[in-house]
């Protein structure tokens, strides 16, 4: 993964963002944490948009608030103030149950440490999000096989996570993230726990999802090389978003 052009090479042209509608609107978002009696501001007055099909990399040093911002967009944390509208839904107005339902249908998650369930096979891990849908067993099987085919792991579907390499586990996690065909994919340091070769494979896969499938991807990383695969890079520093983006 030394060259982002290599990672996305041969996977079609990037999506033309100018003609794409805005899918994520982040407005005046503030977030702080309490450490004992101290209030630590993590995000301050964050404003930006993400267009449909955009591959965005959020960068910044440790503690800059990038993972917190990702969690807020993914609906797994709550803003202190401000609004986040995704696909026309103001997720800051949703209660826990509504948010859980929204996440299940609109967000695919890719974590740094894969977060697969160790007692489930690759197939069963990918099938997990589909259990919350009304799909039949046969339909679920078709979706899972398709997702595992996309990440080129059809032959490992009966293996448990402990029987897979780190790169393979992350590919299973990506299959789990895309199997419900979510509105956005969020990835928190997806290559952070991988060796160079595996990291390159993962970035190549994400490029493919972006360019061939038109997925909207928001990725947190502090690996500049991984970020180069993204179309847009935004920087966070001490809770502020640098509005100049590349």
């Amino acid at each position, binding site marked *: 993964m030394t060259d982002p052009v290599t990672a996305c090479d041969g996977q079609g042209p990037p999506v033309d963002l100018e003609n794409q509608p805005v899918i994520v609107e982040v407005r005046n978002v503030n977030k702080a944490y309490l450490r004992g009696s101290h209030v630590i501001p993590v995000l301050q007055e964050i404003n930006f948009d993400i267009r449909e099909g955009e591959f965005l990399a959020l960068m910044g040093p440790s503690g800059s608030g990038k993972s*917190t911002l990702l969690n807020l967009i*993914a609906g*797994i944390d709550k803003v202190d103030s401000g609004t986040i509208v995704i696909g026309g839904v103001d997720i800051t107005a949703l209660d826990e149950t509504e948010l*859980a339902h929204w996440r*299940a*249908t609109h967000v695919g998650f890719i974590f740094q440490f894969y977060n697969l369930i160790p007692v*489930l096979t690759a197939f069963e891990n990918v*099938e*997990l999000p589909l259990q919350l849908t009304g799909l039949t067993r046969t339909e679920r099987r078709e979706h899972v096989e398709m997702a595992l085919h996309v990440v080129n792991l059809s032959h490992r579907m009966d293996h448990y996570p402990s029987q897979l390499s780190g790169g393979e586990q992350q590919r299973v996690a990506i299959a789990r993230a895309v199997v419900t065909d979510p509105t956005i994919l969020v990835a928190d340091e997806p290559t952070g726990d991988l060796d160079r070769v595996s990291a390159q494979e993962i970035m190549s896969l994400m490029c493919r999802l972006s360019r061939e499938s038109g997925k909207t991807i928001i990725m947190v990383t502090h690996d500049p090389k991984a970020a180069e695969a993204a179309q847009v890079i935004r920087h966070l520093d001490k809770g502020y978003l640098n509005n100049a983006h590349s």
Partner: protein
Amino acid sequence: MRTLKLLIRNAFRHKLRTGLTILGITIAILAFGMLRTMVNAWYAGVEASSANRLVIRNSISLVFPLPLAYKDKIRQVSGVNLVSWGNWFGGVYIEEKNFFPNFAVEPKTYVALYPEYVIPDLQKTSFLNDRKGAVAGKKIAEKFGWKVGDSVVLKGTIFPGNWEFTIRAIYKGRDRSVDETQLFFHWDYLNETMKKTTPRRADQVGFYMIGIMNPNLAGEVSTTIDATFKNSLAETLTETEKAFQMSFVSMTEAILIAIQLVSIVIIVIIMAVVANTMAMTARERIGEYAVFKTLGFGGWFIAGLIFGESLFISLTGTAIGIGLTFPVAEAFHDYLGTYFPIFFVERETVYMDIAAGVLVGLVAGLFPTWRAVKIRIADGLRRIG
């Protein structure tokens, strides 16, 4: 279905830990079941009592006798339809460790009063016709290898001497609540011997056992009998057979309460052990629960996983424990049958075992579930890596 598979696989992620926890529950349920069975065995005599039978004894104490002459007056009391009498004989067969209850009784009325002692007709006739004949319970006969026609010698403790009997009948219990470890023989044999050897002890009975026409008459009949012998040299105390048996049990009530408390303490201890296991389990998996929540699974699903696993472990141990209680109780009965003649696991004990197992599973899952459901996803995910 997937959830069930998931919670069973989760339960065996730490095989040693789960195995030891199940073993602990098994032992606790086994101990609980055995203690409950022991308490029930203590009350077996009370439970087997008939509401149609009253016991009359000396009002001062059971060790003081009553005159045989009372029998005619008792018979005249309205509501009484059968009068029998007897003495606790307290004989020893070969040596004291071979203890079993043995009585001298008026045979014809006694057999009529106790239809739950099932005796074949021929043997009954043979017993009634032989003044030195005795009836032994099936269990005691099997234990000592007695057969009908065998001679048995008991060494008298209350009534000195060697007493020889011929086993004329072997009784079986009508149901399993009947004590099959007793031996009884003709009171006349005892009385006639007393007349020869210790005349002052002759014509004295230890108790009267009477049959009444209707259990509702028990109070009235008791009052009448006791009033009849008021201000005599041997005043009577008449009570139902149940109350009579209960008076023996109440002598050891403190022990029974202690046994019951211990059985509850065992359950509380195992509850703490399983709760600890589940707390460790949930703490280790808090990141996974956060992943489930991230994917959209709700608190109910997480609660189902933890409670399900807790109940699975608890009920597996309970099932094994219940399964073991029966053979262990059987072995215990074989070994100490003379002290606990009625020692079997009652259905209520099994229900209590199951209730205890469910309670342990639910209580053990309570705190870990609350913690897993309440934790914020972001905090849970932070625990990974």
